C-alpha cells in the first residue's frame, strides 16, 4: 500500500535505475538509483535521533543536494520546510520561530551562511555525514507512517508580517501529483526545465511529477533567465521538452524578440502559473513555438493548483486568459456575498474542496480558521474547504475567469505578497511616520507612500534593500507631506491611487 510519495519513487527507481532523475549541469547529475540511495542515507542520519512526524528545516540553496535533503526528510517520516537562503535574516528567523524545527539540514556550500544565525537547533551537514543506510529504521518508518502526516510546510507572506506555513500531507501531495502527471502526460520521455525555487509551491509540480513518472528534471541555472539567448541554447543543449514557469520568465524571452534568433527546438509543453500571463507575450510564444500551452491557477494551500485551462482558441492581445475549470478529483465552489452558490454571470469567491486542500497553517490557529472553513454549501456534516480570497466568474464557454483578490493580497512577479507585510517591515524604519502601499496592476508596480520629517527617498530605498526580499521591494517610492485618511481613520487607499494616477506628488 502506498502511503508516502516516496513509495512511488521506490517503485519508479527500480524501472529507471540508471536514468538521470535530476540534472544540475554537465558535471552534476544523478541517476534514480543513486538518488534514492543518497536520500536514504540522509534519512538514516535523521533517524539516529528517532524523530517521527517532526518539522525539519532545510537551509540549502537550489541544487541536487537540496533535493536529496527534501527526499531524505520524506523517507525519514518527518516533514520538511525549504528555506530561501537569500532571504532577509528576519524572515528566516520568523519562519524558524513558527516552525520550531527539531533539526536543520545544510551542506558544505551553505553551512557558513547558516552560521550567521544563532539558532539553538541541531544541524546536520549532509555533505559530511555517516554514509550507512539503516534499512531497519526505514522499514519501521514505513510501518508506522500514515498518509495524513505532513510531507512539507511551505511559507508564504502574511499580512501581520508573520509568514504563513501551509501544511501539505502526503495524501494531498499524492492526489495532486497524480492529477498533474495524468493531465499533462508526464512520462519517462519528459525532460523538465525547472525555473521555480524549491521553497515556492510551483516547484512541487515539476519535482514530484518527475519522480513518480521516471522523467528527468533539469535545474536551469538562474543566471540564464537574464540572458534569453543563452537560456534557449541551454534548453536545446539539454533537449528540454516541458516547462512550467512563472509568466514573467516567459515574458522576458518574448519581449526581446529572442525567437528571431533562436528557437527552443524540443519544446512540447509550456505550462505557467503564479500570476496572470500577459496576452501579447503569450501570443508571441504561440506564433513561434508550436506547443501545448496551459494556464494553471491555484494557491500554495491547495498543494499548487486547483483550476487549469489548456489554451485552445485564439485570443486578441487585449483579451484575458481564463483560469479554466477544476482539476480532476477537485471541486471549485463560487460563493457569493450571501454565502450561496454564485448565479450565472455573478462574481463569487473561489472555494476549493477535495484532496489537494492542505491541512491549515502551521502553528497558526487564528489564520487557519479564517481560510480553512466549513463548506458554506454543506450544512449537514463537518467538511473543511479552502477559501482562496480570489474572485471568479464563469464566462460564456463555462470557464472561470479570474477577477483579482478580495483583499490586499497581490500577485507580483509570480509571488503572492500581502501589502501589509511590506508596510509592517518599512514602518519599522526609525524616523518614518507612516507608510502605505498600493499595487499598480497595469504596470505591475508596487508603489510605496511614506510620511517623514527627517528621511529622504534614498534613506527609505536603502532600508528597503536590506529589509525586504527583492520581489517585495516597492518599485516606486513617493514622499507625502501628509498621509490621507478616510472617515474611519484608516489610510485612504482610494485617495492614494488617485494621487498616484494623477502624478500629484
Amino acid at each position, binding site marked *: 500500500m502506498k502511503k508516502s510519495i516516496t513509495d512511488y519513487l521506490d517503485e519508479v527507481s527500480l524501472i529507471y535505475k540508471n536514468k538521470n532523475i535530476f540534472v544540475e549541469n554537465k558535471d552534476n547529475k544523478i541517476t534514480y538509483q543513486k538518488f534514492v540511495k543518497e536520500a536514504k542515507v540522509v534519512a538514516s542520519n535523521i533517524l539516529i535521533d528517532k524523530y517521527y512526524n517532526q518539522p525539519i528545516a532545510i537551509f540549502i540553496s537550489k541544487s541536487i543536494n537540496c533535493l536529496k535533503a527534501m527526499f531524505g526528510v520524506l523517507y525519514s517520516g518527518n516533514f520538511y520546510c525549504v528555506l530561501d537562503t537569500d532571504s532577509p535574516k528576519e524572515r528566516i528567523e520568523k519562519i524558524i520561530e513558527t516552525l520550531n524545527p527539531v533539526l536543520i539540514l545544510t551542506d558544505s556550500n551553505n553551512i557558513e551562511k547558516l552560521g550567521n544565525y544563532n539558532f539553538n537547533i541541531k544541524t546536520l551537514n549532509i555533505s559530511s555525514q555517516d554514509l550507512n543506510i539503516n534499512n531497519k529504521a526505514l522499514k519501521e518508518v514505513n510501518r508506522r507512517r500514515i498518509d495524513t502526516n505532513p510531507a512539507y510546510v511551505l511559507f508564504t507572506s502574511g499580512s501581520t508580517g508573520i509568514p504563513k506555513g501551509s501544511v501539505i500531507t502526503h495524501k494531498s501531495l499524492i492526489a495532486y501529483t497524480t492529477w498533474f502527471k495524468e493531465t499533462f502526460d508526464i512520462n519517462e520521455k519528459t525532460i523538465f526545465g525547472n525555473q521555480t525555487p524549491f521553497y515556492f509551491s510551483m516547484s512541487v509540480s515539476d519535482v514530484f511529477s518527475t519522480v513518480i513518472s521516471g522523467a528527468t528534471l533539469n535545474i536551469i541555472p538562474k*543566471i540564464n*533567465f*537574464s*540572458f*534569453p*539567448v*543563452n537560456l534557449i541554447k541551454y534548453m536545446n543543449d539539454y533537449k528540454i521538452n516541458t516547462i512550467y514557469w512563472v509568466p514573467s520568465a516567459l515574458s*522576458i524571452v518574448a519581449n*526581446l*524578440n*529572442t525567437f*528571431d*534568433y533562436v528557437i527552443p527546438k524540443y519544446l512540447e509543453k509550456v505550462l505557467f502559473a503564479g500570476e496572470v500571463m500577459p496576452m501579447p507575450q503569450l501570443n508571441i510564444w504561440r506564433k513561434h513555438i508550436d506547443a501545448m500551452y496551459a494556464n494553471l491557477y491555484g494557491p500554495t494551500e491547495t498543494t499548487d493548483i486547483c483550476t487549469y485551462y489548456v489554451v485552445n482558441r485564439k485570443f486578441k492581445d487585449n483579451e484575458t486568459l481564463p483560469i479554466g475549470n477544476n482539476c480532476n478529483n477537485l471541486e471549485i465552489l463560487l460563493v457569493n456575498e450571501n454565502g450561496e452558490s454564485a448565479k450565472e454571470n455573478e462574481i463569487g469567491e473561489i472555494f476549493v474542496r477535495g484532496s489537494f486542500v492542505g491541512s491549515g497553517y502551521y502553528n497558526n490557529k487564528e489564520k487557519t480558521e479564517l481560510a480553512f472553513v466549513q463548506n458554506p454549501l454543506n450544512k449537514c456534516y463537518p467538511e473543511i474547504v479552502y477559501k482562496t480570497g480570489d474572485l471568479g466568474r464563469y464566462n460564456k464557454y463555462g470557464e472561470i475567469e479570474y477577477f483579482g483578490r478580495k483583499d490586499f493580497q497581490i500577485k507580483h*512577479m509570480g509571488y503572492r505578497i500581502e501589502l501589509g507585510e511590506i508596510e509592517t517591515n518599512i514602518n519599522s524604519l526609525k524616523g518614518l511616520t507612516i507608510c502605505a502601499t498600493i499595487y499598480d496592476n497595469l504596470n505591475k508596480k508596487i508603489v510605496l507612500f511614506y510620511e517623514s520629517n527627517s528621511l529622504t527617498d*534614498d534613506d527609505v*530605498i*536603502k532600508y528597503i*534593500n536590506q529589509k525586504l526580499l*527583492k520581489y517585495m521591494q516597492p518599485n516606486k517610492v513617493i514622499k507625502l507631506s501628509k498621509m490621507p485618511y478616510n472617515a474611519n481613520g484608516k489610510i485612504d487607499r482610494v485617495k492614494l491611487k488617485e494621487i498616484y494616477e494623477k502624478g500629484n506628488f
Partner: protein
Amino acid sequence: MKEIVEVLNEVKPGVDYLKEENLITGGILSSFDLVMLIAMLNDKFNINITVVDLVPENFENVKSIENLVNKLK
C-alpha cells in the same frame, strides 16, 4: 565611464561600480536590475541593445558595458 556609473547607481545604489568586476556572475545585478539597466542605457545613449548583445560578458563590469555602448552608438 562616468555616465555608465551614474546609470548603474540609478538602477541599484550602494555598489562601488568602479571596483566590481563581476556584476552578473557575482550576483550583484538581478535579472530585474538588468532589465531596468538596458532600458536606461537604450534611452540615455540612444542605442538599441538587442537580445544578441544580451550576454553576461557584456554586463560584467563598467568597462564591458562601456564597450558595448560604444559599439552600438
